[in-house]
């Protein structure tokens, strides 16, 4: 075998292994879920799409679940709400995390590891415990309300728990490290002489920030937003503990279909649409990026 053939074989193996992993643990399960979503319920179980009876093979593909998803306002509204809350969370995370990551990246090199450690410190405590702590802080008779009452800022408790406010607060609180870390990674490797060059060419520090720092941290902004947005769309625990009746999200619907109604095909259809809702914009975005890169290279 020649060296180049060996190298080609080697690179194929390297690409092939994760590819196989993704096929085995993502694509195949997804196809299974999809198959369930197009099957029919039969009392408490769902029927297989492929049936074998009396020498007759019947394939029954049932799209009814998808039709009801599209027609039922409940599902549609929940999808939109989930995307909205997730987008809102990602945006707020970005606004808080950017200055945070910026300051860490610009602090003296020997202090950065300690600061990063502090960003990750919350992970050392149980996630559930931290969410429950927010319940206590935000309750009508909770710490915040008591404090404001004592200070005389408010006359009666504000309702904070089980509102969109508490939901978004909880999600921002939980997911902000996932925004800070990729932003930090792009900001810390930025060549600072670029900022000096911008100042030298007449840009004020604010202009240098918007024209140089922000565009150059684009990859970090995108990565962080995705890391926050995607899990937030399907988030179940936080809406369950901090959200209220107005904040029904798709994770809860999924749970209800599986374990409340025991309607696996419907639950599977909800899940498939959720995956598509996230993947399609991502794919379009990637395609756009690739085209922009190709155009620049031409």
């Amino acid at each position, binding site marked *: 075998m020649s060296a180049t053939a060996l190298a080609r074989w080697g690179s194929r193996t390297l690409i092939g292994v994760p590819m196989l992993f993704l096929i085995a643990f993502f694509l195949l399960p997804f196809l299974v879920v999809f198959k369930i979503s197009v099957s029919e319920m039969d009392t408490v179980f769902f029927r297989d799409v492929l049936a074998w009876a009396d020498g007759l093979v019947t394939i029954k593909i049932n799209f009814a679940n998808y039709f009801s998803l599209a027609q039922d306002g409940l599902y549609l509204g929940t999808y939109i709400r989930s995307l909205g809350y997730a987008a809102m969370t990602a945006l707020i995370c970005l606004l808080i995390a950017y200055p945070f990551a910026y300051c860490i990246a610009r602090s003296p090199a020997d202090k950065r590891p300690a600061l990063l450690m502090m960003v990750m410190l919350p992970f050392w405590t149980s996630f559930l415990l931290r969410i429950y702590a927010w319940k206590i802080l935000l309750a009508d008779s909770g710490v915040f309300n008591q404090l404001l009452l004592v200070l005389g800022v408010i006359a009666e408790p504000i309702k904070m728990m089980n509102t969109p406010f508490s939901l978004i607060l909880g999600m921002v609180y939980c997911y902000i490290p996932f925004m800070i870390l990729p932003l930090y990674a792009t900001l810390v490797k930025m060549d600072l*002489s670029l900022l*000096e*060059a911008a100042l*030298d060419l*007449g*840009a*004020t520090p604010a202009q240098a920030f918007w024209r140089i720092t922000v565009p*150059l941290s684009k990859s970090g902004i995108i990565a962080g937003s995705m890391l926050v947005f995607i899990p937030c769309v399907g988030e179940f625990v936080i809406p369950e503990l901090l959200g209220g009746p107005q904040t029904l999200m798709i994770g809860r619907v999924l749970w209800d279909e599986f374990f409340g109604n025991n309607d696996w095909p419907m639950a599977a259809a909800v899940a498939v649409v959720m995956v598509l809702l996230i993947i399609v914009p991502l794919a379009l975005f990637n395609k756009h990026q690739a085209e922009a890169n190709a155009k*620049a290279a031409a």
Partner: protein
Amino acid sequence: MAFLQIRHIVKQFDEVFAVDDVSLDIAQGEIFALLGSSGCGKSTLLRMLAGFETPTSGQIVLGGQDIVGLAPYDRPINMMFQSYALFPHLNVWDNIAFGLRRDGMSKPDIAQRVDEMLEMVQLKPYAKRKPHQLSGGQQQRVALARSLAKRPRLLLLDEPLGALDAKLRQRTQLELVHIIQRVGVTCVMVTHDQEEAMTMATRIGVMSEGKILQIGRPEEIYETPNCRFVADFIGTVNLFKGQVSVDEPDHVVIDSPECRHYVSHGITGTLGMEVDVAVRPEKMGLQAAAPLASERESAAEVGHNQVQGEITDIAYLGSLTTYHVRLASGLVLKVTQTNAARHAGVPLVSGDAVWVWWDGTDIVVLTR
């Protein structure tokens, strides 16, 4: 009054004086090179001109205005960075237009200026490329175009050719000088490469440990260095330690362990003073027999300015050959001979006993 006046500039980092009381006048249209090894303070001085560092004390006056208090973006000064610092997310055109846009220039004016700059550095076909799609030499030209686009009153070059390979560097040196002269901008450059400084600059300031040791035209710096450091830093030099034994207005004699030096010009010194005698390798003669009286500049030099030694190493460099000659005292002289004739006489080989001699006019006496 000089166009750029640097007055008693001091820059202190903690306890260290990076720039230590430097004063310097630079005339309009000059290309001035600050030359020194790394850590000598030349880059700090340049960064103070650009506005990235604030002097601890001192004044910088450009065209009659003290600019020390001005922010970098308010100074009529542009800099070409050592790493070029091209904005990676902008194409060549937008990189050059960046400074013009900050000035609020009108769109057609910007387009005209950018095209003019692209024309000047011959990069018109590359306007839409991103910096990473260009070669090192092209990037350097974009950086130059960008720093000249705003027509600065002062151009700063930080190791302008440091990132290029040797062959390209030689070609680019003169190209860069031609462009700067065509634009007519006053220029201060920083380099550790003496050849680059000598080729490009009209005047050179040699820096060491935060101070400027000597300022002069390239030939002044080379032929009449004013101290041991400058003589040693610029080119190669042979140094003899000695003592003044005769001090006349038109000549001096210096005794060193190796030989007696007859210097055919007066020096500002006193009898018995400890000095260094510096002679450049190319100003020395090398031959198997002792030099004849007829070969000397004057009768007074006979028996002076000559030593005997043994060739220890020969470095053939094509146009030149450098001979290393070890003297009885242990001092090793470097002597270069041009290889003007193709096959000249009997070649000297390692181990040969030889005479090395030089003229009294070629000696530079350095006070300690």
